[in-house]
């Protein structure tokens, strides 16, 4: 033990990540039906740390301490609750063996990564609804609390808690296992994992609330899990494409909000604030995504993000390339939101009038009728054409369709610009 106070800071998110891997390990030992018991044991270990470390000092190997104490808490619970009947002692012996490992050893690390990977694959089982998969992944492998998940999804704590209870019941009722799927089932499950991770990332990325760090954490967790999948032997080029996309887009997060908490458009961002480590990571995975012939939606999205990242400043961004990538993307995914993003590229290459034509069809789409970004983009195009009165009306319409404060301030500044 170090004396009290020597270490008063830990590795960032140490507890969260440690919680995730120990829950994965204990769930593997206890069986997926007992994931709640695994979570309680980990919670107990963290509570024990909170109760003792401030007085006795932080143990030299705090991660190992949490790992061991959580195992012991599981053993105590097994003996107390007797849910396993006469299998109890055999299970206790197995948990005791698991508790004795040395965390830093490479084969132990490998084992724990494998536990986490199996856990992700189970959480993303098609029997579970996507929202349930995301919440369950964040809670079990991500080490997020119910409150944090609720905040990230702008939901009530009780709604998330219920979602998790239901998901765990489904795991039990449908007897989901931690076995990795094989054959064609593997490809389908991998797709489902990628979809869940992409959804998790977008939830964090899409809401432009800079002051709420939990959303950044959501993006980074999706990226961490993506990298975990990418490091496994089952990874396909598509996995690397998604990781590249998340890393390259995630790199821009620090620049999306300025010091005053105001929203900054991609064009106006201080590129010095882009995370160079993530950009490098993104390009490395982008290269690996090129193996094989497949061009997935993730590939094209990653290519767009990479093209932005290659520009030294907004003037050097290769917009014709971005536009052609959007053309490819529209062929793969007919989502009106993608067509709206394409219109922004059209404006850069062919001017605002052509872009207005490009979004004309979208305005009739019922899915976008309430979509403030469509109105906002339209306003900007009209402003560029000096049709200020119509531009102002468009921004005002956007204003009535968003409750996000930084975004509202941004729109008000645009409306003022129309009056000038």
């Amino acid at each position, binding site marked *: 033990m170090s004396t009290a106070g020597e270490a008063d800071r830990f590795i960032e998110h140490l507890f969260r990540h440690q*919680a995730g891997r120990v829950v994965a390990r204990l769930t593997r030992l206890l069986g997926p039906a007992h994931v709640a018991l695994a979570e309680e044991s980990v919670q107990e270990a963290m509570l024990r740390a909170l109760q003792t470390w401030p007085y006795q000092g932080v143990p030299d190997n705090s991660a190992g301490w949490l790992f061991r104490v959580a195992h012991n808490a599981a053993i105590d619970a097994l003996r107390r609750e007797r849910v396993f009947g006469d299998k109890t002692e055999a299970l206790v012996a197995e948990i005791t063996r698991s508790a004795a490992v040395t965390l830093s050893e490479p084969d132990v690390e490998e084992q724990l990564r494998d536990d986490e990977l199996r856990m992700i694959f189970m959480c993303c089982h098609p029997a579970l609804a996507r929202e349930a998969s995301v919440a369950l992944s964040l809670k079990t492998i991500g080490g997020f609390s*119910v409150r944090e998940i609720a905040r990230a999804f702008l939901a009530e704590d009780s709604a998330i808690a219920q979602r998790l209870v239901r998901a765990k019941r489904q795991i039990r009722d449908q007897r989901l296992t931690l076995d990795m799927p094989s054959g064609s089932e593997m490809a389908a499950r991998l797709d489902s994992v990628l979809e869940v991770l992409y959804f998790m990332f977008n939830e964090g990325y899409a809401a432009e609330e800079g002051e709420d760090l939990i959303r950044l954490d959501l993006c980074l967790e999706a990226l961490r899990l993506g990298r975990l999948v990418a490091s496994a032997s089952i990874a396909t080029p598509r996995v690397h494409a998604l990781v590249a996309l998340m890393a390259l887009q995630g790199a821009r997060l620090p620049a999306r909000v300025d010091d005053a908490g105001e929203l900054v458009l991609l064009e106006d961002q201080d590129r010095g604030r882009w995370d160079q480590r993530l950009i490098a990571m993104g390009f490395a995975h982008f290269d690996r995504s090129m193996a094989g012939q497949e061009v997935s939606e993730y590939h094209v999205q990653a290519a767009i993000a990479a093209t932005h990242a290659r520009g030294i400043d907004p003037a050097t961004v290769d917009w014709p390339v971005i536009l052609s990538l959007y053309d490819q993307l529209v062929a793969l995914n007919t989502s009106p939101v993608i067509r709206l993003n394409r219109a922004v590229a059209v404006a850069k290459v062919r001017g605002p009038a052509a872009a207005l034509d490009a979004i004309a069809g979208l305005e009739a789409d019922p899915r976008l009728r309430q979509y403030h970004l469509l109105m906002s983009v339209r306003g900007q195009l009209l402003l560029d054409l000096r049709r200020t009165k119509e531009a102002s009306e468009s921004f005002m319409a956007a204003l009535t369709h968003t409750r996000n404060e930084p975004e509202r301030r941004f729109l008000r500044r645009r409306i003022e610009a129309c009056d000038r």
Partner: protein
Amino acid sequence: MSKFMLLLYDDPSEWAKLGPEDMQKAIEKYMAWSKKPFTVDSQRLGQDAGRVIRANGGKPRATDGPYSETKEVLGGFYTIEAANYDEAVARALEHPHVQYGGTIEVRQLYGS
């Protein structure tokens, strides 16, 4: 310099609501306070409810805890140095324990 004892009572129901990240932040705050130079000693008490000795009909007898109706339990204590009571109280007020639903009792060590 006088010595004071800070008795920390825990409210476990408040802690049960914390997730891993909150726990880590809490420990970091607690540790930052603990390493302040005025801390002389700190001890955590055992997890159990303890025993209490009382005379029962003139005969000393041990009984198991808990002894009070409150949900709070004495979790541990610090001994700190301070010029006077006000300073000791000011230091206790900075302790994160109270933010997490706990209670701190400040007592001067007699004659220190």
